[in-house]
Every structure is written in C-alpha cells, then in structure tokens.
C-alpha cells in the first residue's frame, strides 16, 4: 500500500516569494520515511484550564484527538484556540506568568505529570508556527538537522534522515542541489515546508500546527494542505485555523471554540452542513466572528 514516488517535471515557474524559481517539483512522499511502526498516537485533554496571569483563558476543556486524523480548531479571535494547542506541547508555560492545569495524555501518559521532562514532550509533539521560522544562520540541510542536533540526538544516519524528511514534504526535488544554501533563501511556501521537514525529522508522534498557512499565498497553501493530507497517514495532526474553508478541506473532525470553551466537536461534514449548536451555525455562516 506504499504509493510509488512521483516526480512531476514542471516548467520553471515564477516563484511566489523571494526565492529562486522552483525546479523539478515533487509531490510529497511520506512513504519515504519508511514503514510506520505500531498503531497511531492519540491525545486526550481532560479538564484543561489555562491562565495568563490572572486572566482565565481556557475554562475547562475536554477533548479527544484520535490517532492518525486531522482535527481542526476554529473559532473567532481570542477564543483560546492557539492557547489550548500550546498547552498540548507545554509551550504555553514559556510565556512569563502563564500556567496551565489539568491533564493532557499522549497515549495514556500525562504530559503534565510531575517529573515529566518537558523537552521530551516537545520532541514527541512537534509544532509548526504561523510565520515560517527557519534558522537564519543555518543552511537548508542544517535546518532540517537542527532538531536532531538541538535535542542532542546522536545519529549515525543524519544525512539519510534529513534527505528522507525533505522527500516526505515534497521539497527534495527543489532543494537537493542546494542543501548548503541558507534556509531563508527559499520562498515563503518552501520555508514553511522546510519547517515541517525540520519538525518531522525528530520523528514526533503528533504534529500541532498553529495557522500554518496564514502567511502563505494560495498556491503554497494548497501544497501545504496536500502535505497535511499525506502526513496524517503517519502522524496525528491538530491544526488551528481561522480559515473555515481550510478546516472544511483538510480536517476529519472540527472543533469550534468560543471564549475558552469547546462549543461543538463533530465530524467536519456535520459541522459544515448541519451544526448542532446555534453558535456554531452562526459562526460558520459568517453571522459573527
């Protein structure tokens, strides 16, 4: 069931960011990462509360993120979707004065249990951010390898892992001849895919995405969405988006949040054809937000 690697040769097109023209674009080939071991990984959030100082941002959330599925979180600005997602990989507490309470289990292990090493949580739960942020002093190769080097992972086959990650995100064809060039020389869409490659190089179990396409043009956005669809074979994905059409295209399940609480949590098809809650209906039809 492993799809063959497809490489489509396209004519050199004008790049849409600041980078040189793209050559020999390849479709994402997640199978390049090898056979996936074991069943997928799920996340369960129970009674999550999060605070910024005295401000109560997340007010008791219970959610399940099933294995190998894409779950989208939608809601108006300030509803707490980014905050909630950052609690999952414990990035929320990096903000001065911020704290979170409750339990979030990755396959039955609570990441908030006392004594848990927060860096290992983050290695298993990766994150892609809104604005592509490749490390400016590093080459393309070094960027992808950065995760492995920064976590002190001794790796004999570093080169192989980097190449596989680049293949998996469909960047290989475009960058294989310039791996030593700086990462920030790529176009916006390529940079974001580079960041995704960097994230999957450390072999996480879950990938969190905080509005990954907000800073990208429509073509780059579609490429990333296509990649997400491929990646879910292997990872559990949670994506925060303010673009409802994107949630409709990409997600298996959609969660609607308002004011720090979950209002509706249902298969995407249901949320967009017959939502149960009046507030969900009003939000998705654009009556507010």
């Amino acid at each position, binding site marked *: 069931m492993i799809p063959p690697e497809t490489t489509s040769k396209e004519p050199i097109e004008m790049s849409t960011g600041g980078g040189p023209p793209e050559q020999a674009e390849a479709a994402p080939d997640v199978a390049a990462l090898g056979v996936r071991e074991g069943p997928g990984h799920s996340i369960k959030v129970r009674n999550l509360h999060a605070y910024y100082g005295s401000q109560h941002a997340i007010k008791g959330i219970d959610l399940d993120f099933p294995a190998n599925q894409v779950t989208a979180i939608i809601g108006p600005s300030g509803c707490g979707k980014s905050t909630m997602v950052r609690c999952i990989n414990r*990035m929320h507490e990096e903000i001065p004065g911020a704290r979170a309470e409750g339990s979030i289990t990755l396959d039955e292990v609570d990441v908030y249990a006392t004594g848990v090493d927060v*860096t290992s949580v*983050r290695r298993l739960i*990766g*994150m892609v*951010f809104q604005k592509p942020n490749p490390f400016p002093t590093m080459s393309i190769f070094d960027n992808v390898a950065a*995760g492995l080097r*920064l*976590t002190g992972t001794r790796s004999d086959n570093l080169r192989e892992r980097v190449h596989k990650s680049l293949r998996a995100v469909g960047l290989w064809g475009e960058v294989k001849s310039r791996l030593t060039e700086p990462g920030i020389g790529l176009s916006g869409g390529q940079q974001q895919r580079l*960041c995704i490659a960097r994230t999957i190089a450390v072999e996480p179990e879950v990938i969190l995405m905080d509005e990954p396409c907000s800073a990208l043009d429509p073509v780059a956005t579609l490429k990333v969405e296509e990649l997400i669809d491929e990646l879910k074979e292997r990872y559990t994905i949670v994506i925060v988006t303010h673009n409802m059409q994107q949630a409709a295209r990409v997600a298996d399940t959609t969660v609607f949040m308002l004011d720090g609480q979950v209002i509706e949590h249902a298969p995407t098809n249901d949320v967009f054809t017959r939502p149960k809650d009046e507030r969900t209906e009003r939000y998705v039809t654009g009556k507010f937000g």
Partner: protein
Amino acid sequence: MSVTGLGPVSARRRRIDQAMRGLLLAGTVIALIPLVLIIYYLLLKGLGQWTGSFFSSDPTGSFFGSPGGIRSAIFGSLEIVGLGMVIAIPIGIGVALYLTEYGRESWFGNLVRYFVDVMTGVPSIMFGLFIYIVLVLGHVGGAFTGWKASVALALLMLPIVVRSAEVVLLLVPSSLREAALALGAPRWRVVTRVVLPTALPGLVTGSLLAVARGMGETAPLLFTTAGALALTGNLGAQMNALPLQIYNDILSPRTALQNRAWGAALTLVAIVLIVNILARAVSRRSRMA
C-alpha cells in the same frame, strides 16, 4: 466650480522652507567645525612624526638626546585593552543573556539593568580610583601593573558591552527561540546554538565599539599602571600605554616630546578609527532574518 488643489507652492512657503534649510545647514557646519579643526591639527602636527623609527623604537625617557618612538606605548595599549576585552566581553554578554533570557520581567533583572545603566554614566576616573584603592594600595599582586589597568578598563567597558549586547539579543526574533524550544531543545542549547549565532554580528559590533572606547581612556591608566617605558609583554609589571604616553609628553617642556605626543595622538585616533570601521563592516555583513 473652480479646480482646487493643484496650484503652485506659495512664495511664502518657499521662503520659509529655504530659511529652515539654511538654518539647519548652518547648525551642521558649526557642529562640524571643531571636528574638522581637530582632524586638521592632528594631521598637521602628527603626520610628520610618523617615521619608521617612530613605530619601531621605545621612548628613551632621557632628557637629552633622541626621544625615541612610541612602540612600547602601542603594544602596551593593545595588551592592556586586550586583557580588558577578555574580561569584559564574556562577562558582559553573559549578563546580557541573563537579562534577555531569564530576567526580562523579574525584579532582579530590572535591578541589574538599572545598575548597568548607572555604570555607563560613571566617570572613567572612578574606575581608576576604585582599582587603585582596592588593588594597588592593597598591594594585591604587585603595585602598579598592567593587568590592574585591564581590570579598570574592563569595568569601564562592561556596561557598554551589556547594553549593546542586550539590544542585539532582544532583536533576535522570539519566533526563533520558540521554534527551537518546540523541537525539544533545552534552554541552554537554544541560547548557544540559535540565539548567539544569530546575534553574533551584532555582538561583535557592540564589543568592538566598547574596545574603541577603552583604547582612548586615560584616567584609569593613571592610577593603575604608571607607564613604564620599555616594551614588555608582562602584564604583571608596569606597562606603557598610548594615552599615558601622550599625557606625559604633552606636559613636557621639550618640543620634541610634544611633537611626539601629536604623533601618538594621531596613532591613537587611527587605531580607534580602524576598530570602528571593522565594527561597521561586520555589522553590514550580518543578516538577520
């Protein structure tokens, strides 16, 4: 209905504009005059001193006969400031790192920042006096020595390094720190592998500017290393330095020595100029995402 809006500029406005321009130009010229005069005098009186023996021989110290060159002063300055750099720069960058990575909001961080700001305003003679009282009078490791001058200069350079380093470190986008943390890197690795390399050009620039400042200070040297005349590499002994040499020579009744002072002053200015140009070149080459 008449067509309004696209008429010519009124004569009155034009006069006012020209008057303002004239005023600004006059102010600039007035400000430049002393600078130009200084440079002119330096070149006029100092350039003639620049001979081979000027740079290759030490001051003789004798009242009659050849006054000698300023070799020991040049090397002495370089050595003293060099040691001062070695002390001030690592400590300074360390303090700046503390302030930006851990102490951004804490009361202690704010206290440190306040003291650093105060220190930048302290007259340089205070540093000389401080070291004089503590180290020289206390006969710690000898009386007047080169390394005590280095310590005094280090104290002087420290707040400059801290201030400029803090600014540069704050310019490193927090998105880079976030990306590294989200990959599962421990904080110290984030600092050494991501923050410092990204800020490096700016840190170098800031340090070079502190060095340029240190090279020109006279007062701290007066109390800590009463200038010897011979060229020496031993920082544990008395050492010569350019500002000291200039100070002594200018006060002397011998015109030959006074002329030498001009030559030394020009040399000092040239060295500082070179360091500044270096700092500019480094900062221009830097590229921050």
